[in-house]
């Protein structure tokens, strides 16, 4: 018979005899059977899919979703529109609304068209409140494109009332505390002004020096009751200053002098606020100062929150990584 129809390769046939080949072939077959026998007693590697689902990698990206913050009891979208603007696929729609007694805006509509989304992650990166994340969905199926327009607010709708209520209370508390602080600061300034008067405000140069020093001294006083994160210090530093400036006319100091003060003592961040205060000085000094304070406070609070959110995200990531490593081993 030709080599083609034999059971083995032509080269091998020459080296071994008929019986040797048979025996060798037999043991090859046995080794094959040993492999299948071993696998018979090993655990199946498949998942019973609809009932069992794979654990997805932490790097898995899918449609975006809103983060449900535990301490807020809801998402934290402030409808800032940054994600809408940055999305290269134009697949996000957000609408927001301001509620009475709640300081920040709140999203009332948040639609994502997953059929368009390129999962680039820009929206997640840009969100100032870190309230966007990747979801883990991977088996959405439909005959219609519209089925992939996800309403991300849906799981939060029921909790929205409660969230707003809680936020109102929290915001009111915050506002009250600020008021107290403002009053305390005012008193301190009044005391300063009184001192100045007592010192005799005739000499402008003399009056200037205590002005610049005393607000600084007042700082720790104002901080003590707040006891907030260190970051919040910077913006707060200018509050007493602003008021001090507002009171400058009382002290009979020249307007140009007060203005000259501002750039010297101010830190760059507080510049805007200060200028506004300075400009509005002649007309209504007191209300302006009161307005300036909460604004800068909100900024600080928001910064602190973002920082906290970042920390949280980092911790979560670390945990997930550790878990993944543990499993990998």
């Amino acid at each position, binding site marked *: *018979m030709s080599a*083609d*129809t*034999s*059971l083995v390769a032509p080269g091998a046939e020459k080296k071994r005899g008929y019986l040797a080949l*048979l025996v060798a072939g037999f043991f090859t*077959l046995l080794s*094959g*059977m040993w*492999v*299948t*026998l071993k*696998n*018979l*007693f*090993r*655990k*199946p*590697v*498949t998942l*019973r899919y609809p009932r069992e689902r794979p654990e997805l990698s932490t790097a898995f990206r899918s449609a975006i979703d809103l983060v449900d913050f535990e301490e807020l009891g809801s998402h934290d979208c402030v409808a800032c529109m940054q994600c809408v603007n940055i999305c290269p696929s134009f697949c996000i729609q957000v609408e927001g609304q301001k509620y009475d007694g709640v300081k920040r805006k709140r999203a009332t509509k948040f639609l994502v068209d997953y059929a368009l989304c390129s999962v680039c992650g820009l929206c997640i990166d840009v969100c100032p409140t870190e309230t966007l994340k990747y979801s883990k969905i991977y088996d959405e199926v439909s005959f219609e494109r519209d089925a992939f327009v996800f309403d991300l607010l849906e799981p939060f709708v029921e909790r929205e009332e409660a969230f707003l209520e809680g936020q109102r209370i929290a915001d009111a508390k915050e506002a009250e505390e600020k008021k107290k602080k403002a009053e305390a600061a005012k008193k301190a300034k009044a005391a300063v002004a009184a001192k100045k008067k007592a010192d005799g405000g005739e000499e402008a140069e003399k009056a200037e020096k205590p002005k610049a020093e005393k607000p600084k001294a007042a700082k720790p006083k104002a901080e003590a009751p707040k006891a907030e994160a260190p970051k919040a210090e910077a913006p707060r530093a200018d509050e007493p200053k602003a008021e001090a400036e507002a009171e400058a006319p009382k002290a009979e100091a020249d307007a140009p002098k007060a203005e000259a003060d501002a750039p010297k003592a101010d830190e760059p961040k507080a510049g805007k606020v200060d200028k506004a205060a300075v400009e509005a000085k002649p007309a209504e000094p007191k209300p302006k100062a009161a307005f300036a304070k909460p604004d800068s406070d909100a900024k600080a609070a928001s910064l602190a929150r973002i920082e906290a959110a970042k920390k949280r995200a980092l911790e979560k990531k670390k945990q997930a990584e550790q878990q993944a490593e543990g499993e990998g081993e």
Partner: protein
Amino acid sequence: MLKTLSDLVPNVFLAMLLAAAAIMAFATVNALFLVWLERKVSARMQRRYGPTVVGPFGMFQTLVDVVKLLSKQLISPKDIDKPLYHLAPIVVFVPVVLGLSLFPIDKSFALVDTNVGLVLVFAFAGMGFIAIFMAGWGSNNKYALLGAMRAVAQNIAYEIPLILAALAVTMIARSMRIADIVEAQGSFPYILVQPIGALIYYISAVAETNRAPFDIPEAESELVAGFHTEYSGMRFALFFLAEYTNMVIVSMVATSLFLGGYKGPLLPGPVWFFGKVYFLIFVMLWLRWTFPRLRFDQLMTFAWKVLIPLALANLLVTATVLKVMS
């Protein structure tokens, strides 16, 4: 003393009825079980789960499948050879049922006991191939016909070593009555005396049942489904039933000839008998899910150039040794 059904039941017709009922029930339950086992074993060897949903471990999956098959429309293609086409599923099933009745499952019981039992078994097994050829020819389908022709060629090739291997055993036992052969294996089974013969028999038996790696008559990748391409519903199920019952029959022959049949310590005879049979069937499943299908020329080369010469040599050596010893 060996008792048969006709000894226990005096009325001949009643005995026949009982035997038919028992065999049909056994064949059906066995096929249901084996199909399930095949799925499970193949799944686990491939590290899948296999059927898990219907019943414990998915055991009733095949039962549900039978319901499905029963409810299927029976489709007959145009221009078929009607008598052959319709007879084939019945003819394929009859010898299988007959073959099942010949084996002593215990020291004292066999459904039928004749002194040519072994010859009968092989004769019935040969009839199965006639049915396969009827199916292939009657279907008026080229794949079916090709499958049937392959089946016949394969049958001729492998029947020879099969019978030569069995012949060596009958020479040692000096009987063709299956009960006698089992009895003759006193304290040790014939596989120790006839290791080569046992191996040849088993390989040929796998080829006889058309199972992988010898499943050339129904090679899916080439012939759609081979000889039963044009059969649907319950007709197809009958071919299926015949295939799985055939596995049992060749395993029963192997058990009786080489493994000492119902003999074994401690446990009762039927337990040993069926334990051995199902172990051999498991090995068949194991083979199927391990080895790829042979090419047709390889199949023929293996039969004519390896199995038949070896079986002849085995027979010659056995005869010589027997002559010298006596």
